[in-house]
């Protein structure tokens, strides 16, 4: 089927280390790391976890943006070929001419940053990605390097040497990718391709690459079981681990639009393809607590690929963005054959990973009401490890105070049931009462009574109940001046 009427392209086209590759057949459905390692014998890219959690497979993906290629570090193991149509993939082998080292590599050697070497390619690539987009030539701070490498596990070095290497990189000596790979001809080629819808057939799978959301909706209506892929950070983990092969995939790689973040009519409106990284960069002024949470949401590699829409569509009760969207009364704007409609988050989830979306509806954008300047919001994410870990428990607390009195309160917890839950009894209990330690202690008990968590790999039921109860006290003390017991 060819919804737009234009002729259909039947191959993927991408560049790898400056060289053009056309991909047809089953290879289109493989993780890019398989193609690199087993077809091109570019084995510098390692695969360890195959789920985007260790960073050994880090690659830089260049996408056309403002007449340049904008490169970002991603986890190659969960980037499938059909997502990379129209991109330039740079691997470790493509970072330097054979036999030479760049400034990042030189610093890693000098500082003993590599021991067994298996995580090293990913670490070098993540750092190269950071330095490639660093706007100034100041040396990196330790925090820069920590934030760059949150998603790169190393089991040998204890990271100290890597951190030192990162802060010693001489930026003037580090070539930029735009110098290594002149972008103009690549962009010209790719931009033309990206305007042409594509459909690639494998022996048992097919992938559609529409160029507009309307086409995507039509395709979804024609293939109700099709899997929609944008960042792929959830769906490809399942493909890798369970060896599932979705028969039909609709890749949003070339869908135009959906990239913007706009503020209008009292709403922040976020396009479905906006990456979490972009959200983190741009939402800080309006929702600082949300961007702080995004810091711990995932690695740069995941945030470069993953989207807010994906986190919502995945529908996990421990999706880190969800409690915030619940208490904000945010809305999903869904697009279906009949047009768009808005669904409030508080009625979006009908069961464990079940959404009130029709099979032929896609998320077009997310609308978050602008907050009132006098309200207070706090988000909590409790996980076994502080950074880059899936939550055991999440909470969003949004209140407006009138002096010491709570005018209204909205609370949502995640990880305490099959879906994220609002806590109506606790909210009602808090409303209209002066905020005191005794009040939040009692409220905590009410909150714990409103939920029925399970025990699982991420924590015992009683742990979640204790967190549900305690988090209100933590919140209280964060609002109060610690020693004086008065509001800050």
């Amino acid at each position, binding site marked *: 089927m060819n919804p737009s009427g234009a002729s259909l392209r039947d191959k993927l086209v991408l560049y790898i280390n400056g060289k053009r590759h056309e991909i047809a057949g089953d290879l289109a459905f493989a993780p890019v790391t398989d193609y690199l390692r087993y077809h091109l014998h570019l084995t*510098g890219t390692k695969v360890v976890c195959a789920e985007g959690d260790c960073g050994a497979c880090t690659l830089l993906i260049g996408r056309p943006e403002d007449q340049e290629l904008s490169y970002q570090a991603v986890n190659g193991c969960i980037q499938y070929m059909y997502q990379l149509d129209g991109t330039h993939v740079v691997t470790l082998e493509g970072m330097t001419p054979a036999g030479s080292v760049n400034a990042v590599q030189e610093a890693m050697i000098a500082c003993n940053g590599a021991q067994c070497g298996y995580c090293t390619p990913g670490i070098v690539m993540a750092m190269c990605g950071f330095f490639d987009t660093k706007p100034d030539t100041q040396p990196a701070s330790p925090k820069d390097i920590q934030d760059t490498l949150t998603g790169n596990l190393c089991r040998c070095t204890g*990271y100290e040497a890597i951190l030192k290497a990162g802060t010693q990189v001489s930026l003037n000596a580090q070539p930029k990718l735009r110098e290594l790979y002149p972008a103009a001809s690549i962009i010209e080629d790719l931009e033309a391709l990206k305007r042409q819808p594509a459909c690639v057939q494998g022996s048992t799978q097919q992938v559609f690459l529409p160029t507009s959301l309307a086409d995507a909706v039509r395709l979804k209506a024609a293939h109700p079981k099709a899997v929609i892929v944008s960042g792929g950070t959830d769906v490809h983990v399942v493909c890798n681990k369970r060896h599932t092969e979705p028969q039909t995939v609709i890749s949003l790689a070339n869908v135009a639009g959906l990239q913007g973040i706009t503020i209008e009519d009292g709403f922040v409106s976020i396009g479905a393809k906006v990456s979490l990284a972009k959200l983190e960069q741009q939402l800080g002024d309006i929702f600082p607590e949300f961007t702080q949470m995004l810091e711990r949401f995932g690695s740069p590699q995941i945030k470069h690929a993953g989207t807010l829409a994906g986190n919502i569509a995945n529908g996990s009760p421990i999706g880190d963005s969800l409690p915030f969207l619940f208490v904000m009364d945010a809305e999903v704007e869904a697009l279906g054959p009949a047009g768009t409609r808005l669904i409030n988050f508080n009625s979006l989830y009908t069961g464990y990973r079940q959404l009130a979306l029709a099979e032929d509806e896609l998320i077009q954008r997310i609308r978050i009401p602008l907050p009132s300047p006098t309200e207070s919001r706090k988000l909590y994410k409790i996980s076994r490890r502080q950074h880059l870990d899936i939550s055991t428990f999440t909470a969003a607390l949004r209140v407006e105070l009138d002096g010491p009195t709570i005018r209204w309160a909205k609370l949502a917890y995640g990880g305490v049931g099959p879906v994220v839950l609002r806590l109506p009894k606790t909210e009602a209990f808090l409303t209209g009462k002066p905020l005191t330690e005794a009040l939040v202690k009692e409220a905590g008990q009410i909150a714990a009574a409103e939920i029925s968590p399970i025990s699982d790999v991420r924590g015992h039921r009683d742990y979640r109940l204790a967190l549900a109860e305690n988090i209100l006290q933590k919140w209280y003390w964060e609002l109060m001046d610690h020693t004086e017991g008065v509001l800050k």
Partner: protein
Amino acid sequence: MTTPGTTIGQNIPHDSAKGHVTGQSIYIDDMPIQRNELFVDFLGSPVAHGRIKAIDLEPARQIPGVVALFTAADLDGHNLFGPILQDEVLLVEDVAMFVGHPIVVIAAETRKALWQAKKAIKLEFEELPPILTIDEAIAQQQFIGAPRTLAQGNLEEGFAQADHILEGTFVNGGQEHFYLESQSALAYPDEHNTLTVHSSTQNPSEVQAVIAEVLGLSFNQVVVITKRMGGAFGGKECQATHPAVMASLVALKTKRPARICLTVDDDMCSTGKRHPFKNRYKVGFSKDGDITALDVQLFSNGGAANDLSTAVMGRAMCHAENAYFIPNIRITGTICRTNLPPNTAFRGFGGPQGMLNMENIMESIAAYLKQDAYDIRRRNLYGLTDRNITPYGQVLQNNTLHELFDTLVERADYKTRRAHIDAFNRQSKTHLKGIALTGMKFGISFNTKFLNQANALVHLYLDGTVQVSTGATEMGQGVNTKIQQLVADAFHLPPDRVRVMPTSTEKNNNTSATAASSSADLNGQAAVNACNTIRDRLIEFASRHFAHQHGEATGSPFHIVWDETGIYDSRHPDDRLSFQKLVSLAHLDRVNLGERGFYATPGLEFSWETGTGNPFLYFTMGCAVSEVLIDRFTGDMKVLRSDLLMDIGKPLNPGIDRGQIVGAFVQGMGWLTTEDLRYTHRGELLTHSPTTYKVPNIQDLPDIFNVDWIENHGNIVNIKGSKAVGEPPLMLAISVWAAAKHALTYVSNGEIPQLNAPASNEEILSRLMHYAHGEKSPWTALDRPEVTIVPPSTTTSGIKG
């Protein structure tokens, strides 16, 4: 001080550093695919304990691309193996003993066919009740080997002298190695039923032996080569064997190259880990905190077969008193047989478990006496000249513990910071702090005497370059670089003239595992011994050469000078030979330019019959202070500061040794904080990938992190005065756990706080809730098993979300 012209003691980069950072280093899965090569995998038992009633391979045989399926019936040798006791069944014959216990080896043309075959094979079991914990094993009397005891002094008298006696139990969890390169092997069939096997193993000789024994070959039919490992940490000491045998089985039977590379999930689910322990102790001490008697019963969860459990327990017992002299002591060690994958070597090898138990006792005594735990530890340290006999009778010599403690307590400003913590904890409504300074003394040498030997092969080539081969395997720790430095030093060459070769059983026979931190000690010395023999020959030749040149009747080796400028006769200093020239002239004179060196550690003797002897050549020591911050409402813990101080003798390569110290510390911190193995009640591991099993990441480093070592030139018994460094610093991380226990003393209502390891945020919060509200549920109960079992019917998959 370094000698001019040598790199010994200097910070030269790892010999693979450039390959690593450019992605050119080759691991098993990176080796080019051979014509005709097969992919290999295995199907493991889905049940922890069960009798196989039926195996139906037929549906798998029908899958296109599946080439062969093998079961125990296809093995031509014996199916039992193990490094100490031959008690592990490679391929299940009758009863599966753990989840992941291999049953069917699969060979296929594609990975996809492998996955499909794994799903298609039909297994029927009669499920038997599994034993998962030490308590269950004790109740059912399921043990591996017999309990052993080390003792010194008179316990009864020691307890009689005590003012106070405490009794308790202590639990530590296991730890997954999480090497980044999973278990892998590539086997080539050669002619006449011989095999060349590339294996990611710490122990090529054992892989060779087991392949031969299981497949019915003689040892000389199998060559095992290890270029490098992408991490190992003990996990590839014994357990690299299984996949290597599987690939070899396929290669031998199909006459096609065969490669196996486990997924991280299959690897974690089916291989053993650091042993969890559950210990009992009774300690007597004076009102001032001098320990008069200690009775410790260590119990380890060994898993389904011995593997190295007996040796691990031996080391745990030899480190159960840690850095402290206890005049009257009894240590017993019992290994429990359970239906988990056989637990195995892991950096520290029982030492961490033994020491952690002791440091828990130290914190407990301090909490009971309401004294500073530092003072308790300091007064109980081994003496310099007396109070220096270990429970196994070895006299502790060159004891630097006092210097280490006294230096660090000052340098880290311990006392002031502890006072600040007292004040902080009184005031803060939201957080708690804790601090601890813990000691570490780690015996170097394999406890088993015969393993303390090594051989090395040194070849000089006519262009003046050198190849050296030893039994040491490179897993990132830098042993190759150290050997490169030692050999370069012996010949006064720059290190880049020396190439350390892949470890091969063809070059070095009957080698010991690269383990016990001692591979540089043993293999480095063997290599230097070989070099010295060649040097003597070359000096003799040079003396004849110069005599001939200068018309003298006989040469005088005594006058030969060899330094980085070349070789000359001191009586004719202007007539110099370069190394290359010397070597090529010597060759023309038919001088042997290759040598095999051998080294056996002298003076070792130890018997478990008597529990006495000198098992260790020397001790690596150290101490560390850590300070932690705990959220009272969530249990989240942050390490604010760690200061490490070690005695590592004269390091061969300070950069590499610093990397070992920091890496081991952070790995130990992971074991004691976020690395939390969880199982179902059926014995299935739930935390089988980094999504659910959380090793430290770069954000988990202490905010302030100081690492240093003292000057000690006195370790003359070891090569160039160096000390082993691979494992010991892992145990400095006990300071982090002890700091968390210290923090709990501020809220435990005067009780000695009980804190298991790992001190995860969940563990800490369960203790905070216990001391705030009492014991309300199994979650807040003080007595819990060493294996965390998620309650049934509510478990979810380890896959994300």
